[in-house]
């Protein structure tokens, strides 16, 4: 068996009284696309927030490519190659596409103690390419993200992860608030991960979307994993029985 790219062992998380994760263990192999489903409050977001460095577990371990990883900050997660696409869309509407693509990871011409002059020419060039690569057709990298539709904004967030060569994409309900057409675009992107050998964790309320795009279905309920099967060996009805 190959070494999992991400492995969780016995993760626990308490939010002052709420036991949100009760010993979650999960191993994901490279290139796998995992659909994570479950009712509201099941603990899906909590699990992925631990993987993306937003929260820390109270007990248990996370291993990245077999090595124990203490993911303290979002920056740290990104450095480990984990990129997260949030439901609320982590782009800044008042800033341009080019600037959004490089937020927190700006290319600099020179710097002193980490603060320095932006390489704006490079930011614009590379953002044009990054956006075209995810099949997004936008006029100019100088357009403000606030002018874009919700789907285009998720596209920018996705292009950002692709540009920085992330190994693992986590998408937490990325299609909420999107139109059908735009949702299909995001689903298409999730499917596309597979062909590029990128690992994906896709959280969605919509079983159809999960079954369309994922290799494996994992269901959570009340802070625990209650179901875990290859998508080909199960059905929407069977998953529903476990929730």
């Amino acid at each position: 068996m190959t070494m999992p790219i991400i492995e969780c062992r016995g993760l626990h998380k308490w939010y002052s009284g709420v036991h949100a994760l009760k010993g979650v263990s999960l191993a994901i192999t490279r290139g796998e696309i995992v659909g994570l489903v479950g009712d509201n409050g099941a603990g899906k977001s909590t699990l992925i927030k631990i993987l993306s460095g937003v929260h820390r577990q109270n007990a248990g371990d996370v291993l990245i490519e077999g090595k124990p990883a203490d993911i303290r900050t979002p920056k740290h997660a990104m450095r480990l190659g984990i990129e997260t696409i949030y439901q609320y869309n982590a782009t800044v509407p008042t800033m341009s596409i080019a600037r959004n693509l490089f937020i927190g990871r700006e290319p600099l011409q020179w710097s002193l103690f980490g603060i320095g002059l932006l390489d704006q020419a490079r930011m614009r060039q590379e953002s044009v390419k990054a956006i075209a690569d995810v099949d997004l057709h936008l006029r100019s990298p100088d357009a403000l993200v606030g002018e874009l539709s919700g789907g285009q904004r998720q596209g920018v967030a996705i292009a950002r992860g692709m540009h920085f060569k992330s190994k693992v994409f986590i998408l937490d309900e990325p299609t909420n608030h999107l139109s059908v057409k735009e949702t299909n675009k995001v689903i298409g992107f999730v499917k596309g991960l597979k062909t590029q050998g990128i690992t994906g964790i896709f959280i969605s309320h919509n079983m159809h979307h999960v079954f369309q795009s994922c290799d494996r279905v994992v269901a959570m309920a009340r802070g625990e994993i209650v179901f875990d099967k290859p998508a080909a060996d199960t059905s929407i009805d069977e998953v529903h029985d476990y929730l």
Partner: protein
Amino acid sequence: MKRFLKIYLEKPELAGAVLLVVLVVLFQLRSNGVFLSAENLRGMLGLLPEMGLVAIGVTVLMICGEFDLSVGSVFALMPMSVAIMLNADVPFAVAVLVGLAICALVGFINGFVTLRFAIPSFITTLGMLFMARSMTVVISGGFPPLLPADLPTWLFTRYVGPGGLIRMSFLWFGAIALLMAALLSLTNLGNWIKASGGFLEAAGAMGIPVNRVKITCFILSSMLAGFAGLVQVLRLGSPLPSIGDGLELQAVAAAVIGGTALTGGVGTVLGAIVGALLIRVIDNGLVLTQVDANWFKFAVGGLTIFAVIANSWLRRTARGIRVDQHA
């Protein structure tokens, strides 16, 4: 509509700049050409740096999503501390550096308390407004200390430029304004400031050290206010404990008139300057056109409300566009 919104988001100071031109023309006509005379310009531009520096600091802080109401008090505290040090025979340069360090400390406390206890900076800095003012009065000992006669005051007050139109302080102001504008639009720190104010959650999720960015802005705001206070005291020749009273609100007014969004993320250094200049122009223009000078605050107040209404209307429209596209 979208284009209009885009212009506002990219050049938020545009409306203020247009208004500025209109007022200048109006005052120039009504004052029979006195308004733009060299002598009047000299008076007006001589005072601009003091208010302008404070407005720039407040604007940058507002862009990152926070407020500073303590700038008026820090404006008095810094030169008062310097005056007391000078009277204790501390060299001028050292006294100024220590004074600036005191400002930095005040800014740090403002930021640290705000973020550590997750309270609105409006409240933290309101508290600091009283505390810093009180400290100023206490250390002054009730009556203002005299400034030594041998200070390099010329560094700030001497008239320079064609026809002696501007004071040295204006050069400091120009240099600092350029630096701050460059910081905001050309550096990664500027990016982080705008991102922190534009959408804090996204900034944090993208790994920006948002707390450090905000504390930096609090410190900048305090230091600029203190420096501006020093400039005023050197111009007036004596450190009164009451200077800068009400300046915090004028600075917020200048920022807002210059297009800075109260919600953060949007604003420019140029906007702060336009706002500060507008306030100076109104002040001076009313006097020249022999309007009762007591209308000054009325005009600034009206303009501020108008600017905020315009801003929030644009913002609501922006949100409206977004909702449309989600549906």
